[in-house]
């Protein structure tokens, strides 16, 4: 269909009657696309962001290597977008208002301003995410952005409107309230960049980052137009997502969010069941208010509107982050905020086994956890019979695979030594003289030599098999090897640093 009405512009440079084919017809550069749509570049950007249209990589770049190519179908998709017409209307309307004001026709200007054309994004959202799960799958960036905007200062100069920021705040609170109420928070990690959360909603893992509750710095190396367009779409999307989520738990949508009510209504079923936790003044309240109820705890804080006071006798834990404590209640435990989060100072998103390096702290924590489960585990260095089989340990999931390998290696060596000892004993028993045993040994050593020889030939064979690979495969192989090497180097560096740190500590 598009081949017929699309490439009108193409005809200009191709000459009449000559129809383009292949990549030249399928892909269009950005400049040509902008001309084709007859919009400004900024409008084109906005459209692309809202419609979720991105450049494609043609197999053959007809117009040049350093250009951005869009698929012609995508551009036609944009050309049929009603929003395009709407943007033109808005532009025309702005001109009208400006003209009226310039002619001091306040009446007309007011009337025009009252009837400003607006647009809604619901249809676009439905188009981009036909099912709810699609929307949830793409929600990571949305949540991160909304949470970031919620923490931004409203600057008129940068066109960040106060309303937008309030919207973002409201939406983020609603989202957190939902997550907290449905107890779907899975992982949390406090990092320098902020706090990472991972929740599981309808089987989708959604991860987002909230900045620390501090004043964010507005830098000037950021184009706020782009950010605002994204945030506009994300605000709309999150609104619909929240509506659907609240609808699914039978709660009226704009929910009444009062932390006091939440605290009272908190269902106790999870990690912090039966915990009554009090937050001191210096700990970041907002994030903990989200995390603790999400895991089923009851929270209060110092300040206005808190459900219960610090002096409450039922408080089991108090979260503090200051060096000295004024009045210490004996009935409660004092905890630092990082201990609220599953493994403190360790990212739950890292697969230690895949990385090939386990920080010592992770092991300590594992040991603590298992100790808490009343499992007696051997301390490192202490070997007890029955437990030294790495396989069983692996089954129990106590040690990781790399560790298991090391252990297996150790065990093999031990058995070899043992065997040697037994052999010698046997020889003694059989009365074999030392000289014969020597000759035997010579034989063995020759065998070993052969083994070494095979080792060198093995290395060579590696070289040789590379020879018979096709170039494509060889390059791939080499690239993979480089990747592996890099990973190994990284681990080596970590281990070295660790060694140095320990050396400096002891020495």
């Amino acid at each position: 269909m598009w081949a017929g009405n699309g490439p009108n512009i193409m005809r200009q440079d191709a000459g009449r009657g000559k129809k383009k084919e292949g990549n030249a017809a399928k892909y269009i550069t950005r400049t040509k696309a902008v001309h084709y749509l007859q919009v400004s570049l900024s409008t084109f950007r906005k459209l692309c962001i809202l419609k979720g249209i991105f450049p494609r990589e043609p197999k053959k770049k007809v117009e040049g290597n350093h250009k951005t190519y869009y698929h012609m179908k995508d551009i036609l998709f944009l050309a049929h977008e009603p929003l395009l017409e709407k943007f033109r209307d808005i532009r025309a309307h702005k001109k009208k208002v400006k003209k009226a004001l310039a002619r001091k026709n306040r009446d007309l200007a007011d009337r025009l301003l009252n009837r400003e054309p607006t647009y809604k994004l619901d249809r676009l959202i439905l188009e981009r995410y036909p099912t709810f799960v699609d929307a949830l799958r793409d929600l990571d960036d949305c949540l991160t952005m909304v949470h970031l905007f919620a923490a931004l200062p409203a600057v008129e100069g940068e066109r960040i409107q106060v309303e937008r920021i309030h919207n973002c705040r409201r939406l983020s609170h609603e989202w957190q309230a939902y997550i907290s109420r449905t107890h779907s928070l899975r992982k949390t990690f406090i990092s320098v960049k902020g706090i990472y959360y991972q929740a599981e909603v309808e089987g989708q893992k959604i991860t987002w980052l909230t900045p620390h509750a501090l004043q964010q710095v507005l830098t000037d190396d950021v184009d706020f137009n782009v950010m605002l367009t994204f945030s506009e779409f994300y605000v709309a999307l999150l609104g619909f997502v929240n509506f659907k989520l609240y609808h699914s738990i039978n709660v009226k949508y704009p929910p009444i969010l009062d932390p006091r009510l939440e605290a009272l209504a908190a269902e106790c079923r999870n990690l912090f069941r039966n915990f009554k936790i009090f937050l001191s003044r210096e700990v970041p309240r907002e994030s903990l208010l989200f995390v603790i109820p999400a895991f089923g705890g009851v929270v209060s804080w110092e300040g206005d509107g808190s459900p219960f006071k610090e002096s409450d006798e039922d408080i089991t834990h108090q979260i503090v982050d200051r060096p000295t404590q004024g009045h210490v209640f004996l009935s409660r435990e004092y905890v630092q905020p990082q201990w609220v989060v599953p493994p403190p100072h360790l990212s739950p998103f890292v697969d230690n086994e895949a990385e090939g390096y386990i920080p010592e702290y992770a092991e300590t924590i594992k040991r603590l956890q298992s100790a808490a489960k009343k499992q007696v585990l051997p301390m490192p260095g202490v070997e007890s019979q029955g437990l030294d089989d790495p396989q069983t340990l692996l089954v129990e999931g106590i040690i990781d695979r790399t560790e298991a390998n090391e252990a297996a290696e150790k065990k093999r060596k031990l058995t070899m030594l043992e065997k040697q000892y037994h052999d010698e004993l046997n020889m003694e028993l059989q009365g074999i003289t030392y000289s014969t045993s020597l000759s035997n040994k010579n034989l063995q050593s020759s065998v070993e030599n052969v083994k070494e020889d095979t080792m060198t030939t093995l290395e060579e064979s590696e070289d040789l098999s590379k020879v018979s690979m096709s170039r494509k495969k060889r390059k791939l192989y080499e690239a993979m090897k480089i990747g592996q090497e890099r990973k190994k180097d990284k681990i080596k560096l970590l281990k070295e640093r660790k060694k140095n740190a320990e050396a400096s500590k002891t020495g």
Partner: protein
Amino acid sequence: MVAAAAAAAAMRKSRRSSKNSDRLEQEIAENPAANEDVEEASGGGEESQPSDAASLSEDEGSQGSPVDSEEENGEVSDDEDHRSGEESDSSEEEVPSRNTIGDVPLEWYKDEEHIGYDVAGKKIKKQARKDRIESFLAGVDDAKNWRKIYDEYNDEEVELTKEEVKIIGRMLKGKTPHAGVDPYAPYVDWFVWDDKGHPLSNAPEPKRRFVPSKWEQKKVVQYVRAIRKGLIKFDKPKEEPRVYLLWGDDSSAAENKRHGLSYIPAPKPKLAGHEESYNPSVEYIPTQEEINSYQLMYEEDRPKFIPRRFESLRSVPAYEKALKENFDRCLDLYLCPRTRKKRINIDPESLKPKLPSRKDLRPYPRTCYLEYRGHTGPVKTISIDVSGQWMASGSSDGTVRVWEIETSRCLRVWNVGEAIKHISWNPLPELPVLAISAGHDVLILDTGLGNAEEQARIKELLHVEESKPEEDGSTPVVSWVQDDKYDCIRLKHLKAVTTVEWHRKGDYFTTVVPTILIHQLSKKHTQNPFKKLHGLPVSAVFHPTRSIFFISTKKNIRVYDLLKQKLVKKLETGVREISSIAIHPGGDNVIVGSKDGKMCWFDMDLSSKSYKTLKTHPKDITNVAFHRSYPLFASCSDDCTAYVFHGMVYSDLNQNPLIVPLEILRGHTSSDGRGVLDCKFHPRQPWLFTAGADSIIKLYCH
């Protein structure tokens, strides 16, 4: 204060006409006397009535100062008010000031003892200056000192009355000087309009006053139409709910389906690792040197995030790059081209081809077994006798040696005198003759290794009669000459000969002198069948079983049928420059070595393109060789190594040849940038001979 004083001065000037001020001034002018009077007055009777004072001042204007008197200000001001009320309207006459110098710069009188002249023309003496302490003390004593200002013109001190100060205050505030004046009093039309006769205009009332306006009506109609059409609406549009249940039921998902191209979801951002914690383990924190070394890196390689350590959560600052990182993500989302790429998550070892174990492919040459030493220059070429007993070698030092293979004994040495290019045994076992190319000549040399009967035949064969000059007078391409020194035939060419190869039957042989010549030994005859060749020929070989001839030019291999005398096939190597060629004993497979270190295997039944290209050597391949009976082939190169491969050719046409790299043979040393110059297999054993530029020949055995 200065402004106030200026205002006061201005006011004073304006009021100069009034009697009141004049009286004041006069009083002040006669200050010394007046002061005494006042003191007397005040000292004399406090009960002196204000009315008295008023009457007194009215009567004799110059006497009785109200200014310096100690009387209550209120009364004084009342009194003055009253008086000013009386006199303000009536007194218009100019009353001169005490000084009469007029509007001249006062500095003219700066150095004089007088300040000017009074009305009578008498000098007015300057008053004695009060010193600072005095004036200060006077100021401290006198509560009204702040109202006093000095009039330079008249050289006197004036005290403003309370009323005057009030007026100044009002003027400073921008109000009328007098509180009693109402600037917005209703207008009273004093003119009496009744019974005055004519109106101001006598024009009749125009018609338009009585006809409804056409333009107004038009405008109204316009509005009405606009309202009817809905262009103008008065009620605000209804607020639609901003959010609603968008994904009501997913059954309608099919019709919502995204149009256009398939959607490629953006890759998710990388999640935080251990090092991003606010208090990571020690090993994640780089040392200062490492951080400094980041500066030396390229910007792309530089780590984006440098882990830091904070003691407690309380001390973690806001992340300064939060906005920037989010923005970068936005840019990635809408500016980065997206393509679906298959991510291979496999063990790289699995990419290696499954080759049979080398153990199963034995025997093949593996270790150096013998060395043949004797040459003094790089050994350029070797050739093995078909019986497998003798080996001939030619070197740059100009000698040809024949060795006994099993003992490494050098049997014979001939000094040809020129660097040997190529050497080749006659393939017939009963004809132990060597073809040697050296310089422009090719020698057919009797090695003397055969028995007596054979020797006699060879002698006969190698006898050449003096060739008569050609009838047509043109010089022949090659002249067959009897060489007396070694009792052999010398074929003199016009140009340097590079290679000599025998036909399988031992009668014909070919030489490559840029042109390709085929010689017949029995008839001592030379012919040049390939008049026109594309490209510069590098080497030429006969097919091992059929009458087919291979010519390798720098880029291609051309295959000719000698019987039909036409081109059969052209093999495209795709390498930069061919250096050597070898034909499989079966005759259907060819290997080609190139000067860019690549070796190509051609299956002639399969295609004219190479079946497999092996990039083995980093330097030029000098020679390639097939074994006559074992499925082995080898390549040797200037990098001092020789590769041995297993190359199995199956009789089943559907099965491709199996090529397995077996061994890298090392041992030669580099000399003058050259490594191994030639390699040949033993005709019966799986042994490989290599000739090195280090003038050593090595034998590798299994």
